[in-house]
C-alpha cells in the first residue's frame, strides 16, 4: 500500500524538524532510529504539524505516539484544514 499525501507531508515536516533526510525516514521510524527525536524536538514537531495541518493535538495523543506511523494514524482521525 502506498503512502498518502498526508503521510508524505508528515514525513517532509518531520525531516525538516529533525534536520534529517526524508529518504532516511519512514512511517516505521521511532525515537530509537532518530537520535534527534527527543522531548524538545518533539515540541517543534507538534508546533510544525499543528501549523501545517491546521489541527491541534491533545496531550493524550502526544503522550502516546511512539512512531511516525502513530502520528499518521492520529492525523487521519482529524479534519485537516492546512
Amino acid at each position: 500500500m502506498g503512502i498518502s499525501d498526508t503521510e508524505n507531508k508528515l514525513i517532509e515536516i518531520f525531516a525538516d524538524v529533525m534536520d534529517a533526510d526524508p529518504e532516511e525516514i519512514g512511517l516505521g521510524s521511532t525515537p530509537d532510529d532518530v537520535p534527534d527525536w527527543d522531548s524538545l524536538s518533539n515540541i517543534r514537531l507538534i508546533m510544525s504539524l499543528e501549523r501545517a495541518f491546521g489541527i491541534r493535538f491533545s496531550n493524550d495523543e502526544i503522550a502516546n505516539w511512539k512512531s511516525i506511523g502513530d502520528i499518521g494514524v492520529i492525523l487521519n482521525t482529524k479534519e485537516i484544514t492546512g
Partner: protein
Amino acid sequence: MTCLDLSSLPWLLPAPEDYRARVRALAAEKEPDGAEIRALATYALDLNQCHSLARQCIKLKDRINSKGVLSPLRFAFLSNGTNELVAPAIIAGALRHGVIADFYAPGYGQALNDILSPDSKLAAHHPDVVLLAFDHRGYGLTHPEIGVASADETIARAREQLNMMVSRLRASGTQIIIQTIPQPPEPWGGHSDAILGGSIRTQIRRMNDEIRDLCAEQRLVLLDAAALAAQVGTQRWFSPRFWNEAKLPFDPDIAPLYGDHVGRLLGALRGKSRKALVLDLDNTLWGGVIGDDGLSGIQIGQGSPEGEAFLSVQRLALQLKARGIVLAICSKNEEKTAREPFHMLDEMLIREDDIAVFVANWTDKASNINYIAQTLNIGTDALVFLDDNPAERARVRQVLPEVAVPELPEDPALYAMVLANAGYFETIGLSEDDTKRADQYRANAARTQTMQEIGDLGTYYKSLEMVCSISRFDANGQARIVQLINKTNQFNLTTRRYTALEIERAQQDETVLDLQVRLTDRFGDNGMISVVMFRSKGDTWVCDTWLMSCRVLERRVEEAVLNVIVRAAQNAGVKRLQGLFIPSARNMIVSGFWEKLGFTRTGEKDDGTTIWELVLEGYSPVEVPMELLCDFDTLSDMTP
C-alpha cells in the same frame, strides 16, 4: 495585509525552498564564509530553520572564516525556563546582526546555582555578555498579595535576588543584559489590578521599574521583553500549554522574533548597528512618480490616506536622523525634478539639508549605493535601503548582500511600522555625539567641497581652523569611547573590543595611558574621533589600542596625538614606544601607520601582526596644522 505579524519577521525575505540543503552545503566548504552564513541568517527563519542553521554553525565553529563580518562573542543565557528551544533562535538572530555567539545556557532550574558557584560551567564559559531572562515566575511574582505590606516584602525579595545576580555577574567583568518582565494575561480583580497594590500586575510593574532603575544606575543593557510581549500580545506570548509541557517561558512560535531582538542588542554591543538610511523617492517618500505626475500630482501630506502614509515614513526618517542616523537619497530620476518637492512643497517634512548625500540619476542603484557609502566614508554594511520596488530591492540584495533591504508590504501605511520594527538601528544608549552625527556627515561633504576649491593641502588645513583637544578617559566620554572601541573597523591598529566595565577599569589602572581625542573645525564639532591606550611596561609604553574615526582621515590628528604621547612619555622617563599592527579584514588602511609616524619595525608574528618601535631620546615633535588643547598635568600620573 492590514496588520503586521511581527513574529514572522515580515521585513525579511522568506527562506528559499532549498534552505536546509544550503545550510548543509556549508559543511563541504573548507572555510565556511562568514558573509554567506550571515546571508543565510537573513531570512524570515522559523524555529526549525533556526535550528538547522545554529546546529551547523556549532558543528563548523572552528572552520568558519568570519572575515570581519561576524564578530565572535561568548554569550550566556540565564532564565528560569527551558533554554534549549530558544537557543537556536538566539544564535540565528545574532548571526543576522553580525555576531557569532558561543552560546551557553544552564539546564532547567540551574541558573541561580550557576551564578552563585565560583566553579560553575557559567564561570568556565567566561561570557562576554550575559542575558538575565527571568520572568515573573523566576522572581516569585506569581501570587496576588492581600495588602501592600506583603506585596512590599515580595518585591523586596525579588529585588534582592536581582541585585545578587547582577553583583555576582558584574564581579566577573561580564556585560549584563537584563530583561523586563512580561505581564501574564490573567487578571485577578479585573481592571482594578492596575491600582491594587498586591495584584500580580502591580508587582510586575514595580519590579520592572526596579529593573529599569538598575540598568540606568549601573549602565546595564535592557531587553524590554515586556514591551515586546505587549507588542505581539501577551495572550500569544505566554503558552500555558508549553509551560506545562516543557517549561517554555513563552510560545516557541515567538522564539525567532525574540532571538532577533537578542541579536540586535548583541550586534549593537559589537558596533554592528546600521548608520545610514538610504531612501528611494517615488512611492517610498511620496505617492506617485514625480517625473510623470509632477509636483501637483504626487501624494504627500494631510488630506489623503496615501499622503499621510508617506508622511509617516518621512517622520520616522527624521526621528532616526535626530538620533544620529544619516539620511541619503537614491532615486532613478532627473536630479532637478527629484529635488523639487523638497523645496517647493510645504507638506514635505524632509528638507534638502536633512540629506547628507542626494543621488538622483539613471544609473544602477547598487552602484549609486556604493557611491553613497564612499561619500559618507562608511561601509556598505552600515546601510539600510528602503525602496517600494521589489526589482530594485532584489538587484541591490544581489550585488550588495551586506546592505539591509527590508521587504515592504503592499500598503504604504505600514512602511514606517516595518522599518521601525526591523531593528536595524538598535542603540544601547545614546551618546551626546550620536545626536550630532547626521550634521557632522553633512559638514564633511562641505569640507570635501572646500578642499576641491582650495587645492593646496597646507592652505586647506589652515582654512579648516582645527582645534584638537586631548584628555584622559572620563565619565562623560565613556559611552562614546565604548562605542568607538566596538565599532571602529578600518582605522583601528589592534581591533581590540572592550566592554564599558573594562574601560572603567582601564581608566582606574595607573599603568594605562588612556586618551580621548576631539576635533572641531570651522564647519562644526566632529565630537570624539579617536581613542588611544598605551600600557606601561618598564621603560616602554606598549600600544594597546589606537583607533580613529575615518571621518577625520588625512587631517594629521594622529601626529598631534603622537606628539602628546611622546611628551608624556618623556616626562615619565620612558625610553621607547612600542607600536602594534594586528591585521584584520578591514584595517589595511592603517598597515603603514607606524612607519608613517617614524616607527621602526622590530618584529613580525605568524598571524601577520607587526611590532614597531620609536626611540624617544632625541625625538622631537613634528609641527601639526591645528591648535592643541591638552592638560599635560593629567598625563603625569602614570606609574612605570
